[in-house]
């Protein structure tokens, strides 16, 4: 029986400055009926390009430059692909909230789709309800009448999954379907996707950056790097014992939720961009590869069989098994204990919003009163899902908001009622690193003017002095001085986040409040930023409050952790204790929802009652909108 979809030496290229650059280079894989193939890689690896080829919607400047795509045994042309979209080939998009039209109800959007499928009009309603019920949406009639903003992210994604499956397609391409969702919802959506996929026997291509998740969900995975398939094989095998140095570093750069901790080995440099790819005739990973040899840079590696259905494209010494590489890892040194009086103290601090207009009289507790202290040089983690009050807590800590109850003390002095000199000192003590570097860096300032921004309030410092300080700061966050004259738009995501940190360091703070600072980054960049935070803590003794939805990040960095839910701390204590033997069922649920990096573990976990979690998350969203 032929595969549902087969890529045979597919190349896609773009013309840059007169030469053809291959964005996909001789990519081969196949997906059989009822199988799930995972395409794994970081941004820029060419994962989404595969989806573009399958849908026949290549951007205009790209060219299909070689190879064949077979769909159910016959060659798939762009025209055929486009005419089959929605019927034989369906897509599940990345951003569920923006994929639904905000001005149409779910019913209207599904009706459009029913028409496209060619279902008789009188069956539409019943069919939609049936399909929505299948994806686990309670009360489908009610959902049909709603608009996208009246649904939570998870519900939107369920609607989109229902739509994708409603045409009974033979192939579904899911492009990062859970990236925008909370970890608990992610586990639910993945579980659902697999259930429905099994029931209909659909072939699925799952595009993701998360190797652990792919390993648990998929039958087979292919790891992509800069347009090359570097490794392909049975999913669990690839996670358990990755052969290619890139797959290995992808796995190792993700901190683990169990077992001993190692200093995350971070690859030097970045995934090559369009312009650099042209200068890499051989193995595109060679320059960053720890095991390269002289030939690597000039020889194009081909996929070779290394085990049962397991292929690796490497001309170097990747055959050295991963066990021997593990010895290169350094055990994470334990962090010193915080000492002295607390640097930041929250006493019964709470935040309540009063409803206005229609909601007059209703109160919304963004943060229920809590007490908490952060010691000198302490690394404190705060975890929770969206709407748990994490960001409110961060804003209260740095003083961007004043609490409606309780007091915040910095270095023993209450913030409310502090004199302007004391307030200035507090600002220098506690600084914040913002979540989204695109929004946090003024696009019209150069890096130099960004990091030395605080010095503009010191007229006694001359321009050359400022320049020197900027240079030192940028060096402190591990960037070269030639970046100083660039604008944020000329930097990569990781570099922007470093500049973001450098700016906060300018006033020599003793506490950094970092709100989700690694959430938008690729794992290898995330590893670099986390190691940087660790280094700042060791060398300068800066305390860090790390706010994250990612439990493994918190486990890697923090000694103490707070688990938050609905504006309330449900559990707190030393990280090892809380993660090792969680007392609160919510902590356990969070821990179980993270895809394990142990290939033998069962994930997603069997269904449990989580309705409450989703429901309260929704009321929060509704209130904010």
């Amino acid at each position: 029986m032929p595969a549902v979809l087969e890529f045979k030496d597919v190349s896609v290229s773009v013309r840059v400055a007169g030469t053809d650059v291959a964005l996909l280079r001789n990519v081969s894989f196949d997906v059989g009926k009822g199988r799930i193939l995972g395409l794994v890689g970081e941004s820029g690896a060419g994962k989404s390009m595969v989806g573009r080829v399958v849908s026949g919607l290549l951007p205009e400047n790209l060219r299909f430059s070689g190879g064949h795509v077979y769909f159910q045994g016959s060659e798939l042309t762009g025209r055929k692909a486009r005419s089959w979209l929605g019927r034989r080939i369906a897509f599940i998009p990345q951003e569920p909230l923006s994929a639904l039209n905000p001005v149409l109800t779910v019913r209207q959007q599904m009706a459009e789709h029913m028409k496209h499928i060619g279902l008789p009009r009188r069956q539409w309603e019943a069919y939609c309800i049936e399909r929505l019920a299948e994806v686990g949406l309670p009360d489908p009639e009610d959902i049909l009448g709603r608009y996208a903003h009246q649904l939570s992210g998870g519900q939107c994604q369920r609607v989109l999954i229902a739509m994708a499956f409603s045409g009974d397609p033979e192939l579904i391409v899911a492009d990062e379907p859970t990236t925008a969702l909370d970890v608990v919802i992610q586990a639910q959506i993945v579980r659902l996707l697999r259930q429905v996929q099994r029931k209909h026997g659909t072939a699925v291509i799952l595009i993701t950056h998360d190797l652990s998740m792919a390993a648990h969900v998929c039958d087979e995975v292919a790891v992509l790097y800069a347009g090359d398939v570097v490794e392909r094989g049975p999913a669990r095998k690839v996670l358990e014992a990755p052969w290619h140095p890139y797959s290995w570093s992808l796995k190792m750069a993700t901190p683990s939720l169990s077992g001993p901790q190692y200093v995350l080995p971070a690859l030097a440099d970045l995934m090559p961009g369009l312009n650099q790819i042209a200068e890499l005739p051989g193995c595109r990973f060679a320059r960053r590869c720890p095991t390269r040899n002289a030939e690597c840079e000039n020889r194009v590696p081909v996929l070779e069989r290394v085990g049962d259905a397991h292929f690796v494209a490497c001309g170097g010494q990747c055959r050295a098994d991963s066990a021997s590489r593990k010895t290169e890892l350094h055990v994470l040194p334990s962090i010193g204990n915080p000492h002295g009086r607390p640097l930041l103290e929250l006493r019964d601090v709470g935040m309540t919003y009063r409803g206005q207009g229609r909601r007059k009289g209703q109160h919304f507790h963004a943060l229920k009163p809590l007490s908490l202290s952060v010691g000198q040089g302490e690394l404190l983690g705060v975890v929770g899902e969206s709407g748990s009050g994490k960001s409110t807590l961060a804003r209260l800590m740095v003083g961007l908001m004043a609490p409606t109850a309780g007091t915040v003390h910095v270095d023993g002095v209450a913030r409310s009622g502090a004199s302007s000199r004391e307030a200035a000192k507090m600002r220098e003590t506690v600084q914040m690193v913002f979540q989204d570097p695109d929004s946090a860096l003024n696009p019209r300032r150069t890096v130099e003017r960004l990091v030395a921004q605080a010095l503009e309030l010191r007229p006694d410092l001359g321009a050359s002095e400022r320049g020197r300080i900027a240079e030192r700061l940028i060096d402190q966050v591990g960037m070269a001085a030639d970046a100083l004259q660039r604008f944020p738009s000329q930097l990569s995501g990781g570099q922007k986040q470093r500049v973001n940190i450098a700016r906060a360091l300018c006033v020599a703070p003793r506490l950094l409040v970092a709100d989700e600072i690694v959430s938008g980054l690729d794992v290898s960049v995330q590893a670099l930023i986390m190691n940087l935070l660790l280094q700042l803590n060791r060398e300068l003794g800066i305390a860090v409050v790390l706010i994250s939805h990612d439990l493994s990040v918190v486990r890697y960095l923090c000694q103490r952790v707070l688990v938050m839910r609905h504006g309330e701390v449900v559990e707190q204590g030393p990280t090892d204790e809380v993660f090792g033997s969680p007392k609160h069922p919510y902590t356990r649920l969070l821990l179980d929802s993270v895809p394990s990096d142990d290939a033998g573990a069962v994930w997603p976990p069997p269904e449990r009652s989580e309705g409450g979690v989703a429901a309260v998350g929704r009321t929060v969203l509704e209130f904010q909108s």
Partner: protein
Amino acid sequence: MTVLTMNQQARRLSGAARIFSHPKVAIGGAMVLLFVLVAVFAPWLAPNDPNAQDLLATLLPPAWADGGMVQYPLGTDSLGRCVLSRLIYGSRIALIVAVVAATGTMLLGTTLAILAGYLRGGFDRATSFVVVLWMAFPPVVFSMMLMVGLGTGVRNVILAVVLVDWTRFYRVVRAEVIVARQREYVQAARLLGFSHLRIMLREVLPGVAPLIITLFSLQMGVAIIVEAILSFVGLSVPSNVVAWGVMLADGRDQIYQAGWNLLAPVCGIVFAVLAFNLLSDGLRVVLDPRLRRKGGE
């Protein structure tokens, strides 16, 4: 250090080159430049005194038509005044009104918009209410009322334009300021201890500057039209000053005998307004970072 400043200069130059490489900016900019040059050098360019009457040669056709005189290239009006000279001198009033009125409108509208958008609260509600009320008046009637109240003269024309049109700046800029103040870099500046005034000037204003430049350019075109309307109804400049609107009013009576009398100021107005609109539209595209290609510097 010298290398550094040279680099910066090079970047600035290439930035200007990029802006003027856009066809609308290039054409609009060239037209505006021509307009400005004509206005500035009017005494040297005009063949005759714009107010000198040659009662022996009234309503002459253009020089190339039958009965035209080389001395009056575009003919004369009913009082025997040179149409070309009046057209050239008329551009001076148009330019003064355009530049001064647009600047005033921009200053008033932008200042209030940044204050309201940044501070929000009561100030924002109060100014926004005033703006809504203000915009309920029909603009032409409103400016005529103002002129009747203030009296004629170029200065009052400018004042009328400013008082009528500042709301346009206010509405558009305020919306953008509200977006800009939500950005995390504004909050970061607050955490670094920047004062509100400093944040408004250093963080918010640069972000909305492209929008202001675009609106400014558009407003110059609007000011020219308003001035023409007011001088057409005789509420603008005294009779010894040449303005395009006055020429329109004068030429209206002889529209069938001497159409060129009317056509000349119309062409002047269309040329000037088109120039500013083209420039504004082009600037909107080249200065908007969202429409700019990444790393396109």
